[in-house]
């Protein structure tokens, strides 16, 4: 009999250490959305492994950082009261971060294949989006319809699809993301909103290589050959 928990946990050990190959990382992402949330044993082990990675850091000798580092950080710290005056992405990040976090996993979750039991937005994903918005200026926002939008930055070969209050596509259906160019559409990813309607998808795609993103509704598990009708025609 195959010990699925053992196999899962073996992957999780590599996952929290960020040492999985891309193939194993994709499998770990899948397990983190499909298996771990509903498995108390694996969830407990994930928590334990994450704690171990935090503790492991103490094996490194502490070293006093250069004196100018703290003043440098101070110069870049915005007063909290000014958050409201920040750009829309800043508010957007704060909004995302305020979402209740049930499962916080390390690494980059590139997929959201879960159904109704899918956990809410993982902490690490919120952190990744926050970092992206903080580190890249200017952030370009392109509405996709359905309360979702594409967030990208010039010259940065990755982008996010983010939304709150995104409706569910219906039983047995998923949203399918396509990169549409003049002559063809390339399938990028299938996703479902989290139970609270949040969508947060990170894509390692260069936005300069296509004209626009398209979201369609397709049967879950179907072959992504050609895009069907737009999920949200209001996106134009």
């Amino acid at each position, binding site marked *: 009999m195959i010990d699925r928990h053992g196999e899962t946990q073996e992957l999780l050990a590599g996952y929290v250490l960020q040492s999985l190959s891309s193939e194993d990382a994709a499998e770990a992402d899948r397990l983190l959305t499909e298996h771990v949330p509903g498995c108390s044993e694996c969830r407990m082990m994930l928590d334990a*492994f994450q704690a171990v990675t935090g503790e492991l850091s103490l094996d490194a000798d502490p070293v006093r*950082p250069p004196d100018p580092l703290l003043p440098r950080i101070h110069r870049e710290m915005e*007063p909290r009261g000014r958050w409201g005056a920040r750009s829309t992405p800043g508010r957007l990040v704060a909004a995302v971060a305020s979402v209740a976090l049930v499962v916080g996993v390390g690494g980059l979750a590139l997929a959201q294949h879960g159904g109704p039991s899918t956990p809410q937005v993982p902490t690490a994903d919120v952190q990744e989006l926050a970092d992206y918005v903080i580190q890249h200026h200017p952030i370009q926002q392109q509405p996709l319809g359905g309360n979702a939008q594409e967030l990208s930055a010039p010259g940065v070969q990755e982008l996010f699809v983010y939304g709150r209050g995104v409706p569910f596509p219906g039983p047995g259906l998923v949203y399918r993301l396509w990169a549409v160019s003049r002559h063809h559409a390339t399938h990028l990813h299938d996703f479902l909103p989290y139970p609270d309607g949040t969508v947060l998808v990170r894509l390692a795609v260069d936005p300069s290589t296509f004209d626009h993103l398209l979201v369609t509704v397709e049967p879950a598990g179907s072959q992504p050959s050609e895009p069907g009708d737009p999920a949200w025609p209001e996106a134009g």
Partner: protein
Amino acid sequence: MRDGDRDDLEFHRRLSEGDRGAFDELYRRYAGAAYGLAYRVTGQQILAQDVVHDAFMALWRTPEAFDPARGPFRTFFLALVHHRAVDLVRRESRLRARSERAANLEPLVGEDPADAIAEESYLGVRRKEVREALASLPSEQRQVLEMAYFGGKTQVQIAEELGIPLGTVKTRTFAAMRKLRAALEEIS
């Protein structure tokens, strides 16, 4: 919960409300550990500074990312530093020097790494416990763990470097993590 962890929670709460003094206190507590970790992973001071800078800025800008229900602030923050350090070295073209780095870290200008900085006593106590737990691992398990964690290597790279099957690397990593977890709990 240890006193140090309880204090961290209070500092984090205040930081979340925009208290710069609380931020400075967390910096005083963790900058040394964070910089030491980032330096060990990246092998370069300039990269280590960037890692620590980014980690503290992320803490200031999105303090909500830390969920106290999931463990102490210390493990959250240092895991964040580690995550960033590994990400950075993988992105940097300076990776080419990494194979030499483990044995020959860039000298720390103006600092003597052997001259351990003063740190909170509870961190020092925990550091000893972690090292004790690490020392209890079989050497082959500790090796793959260190190559992954401090070397930032993937399991495939580790397998190639050691000339062992990928499955063996996975098995040793899993065993090491489980034993380390158990050892840390026992020591605590």
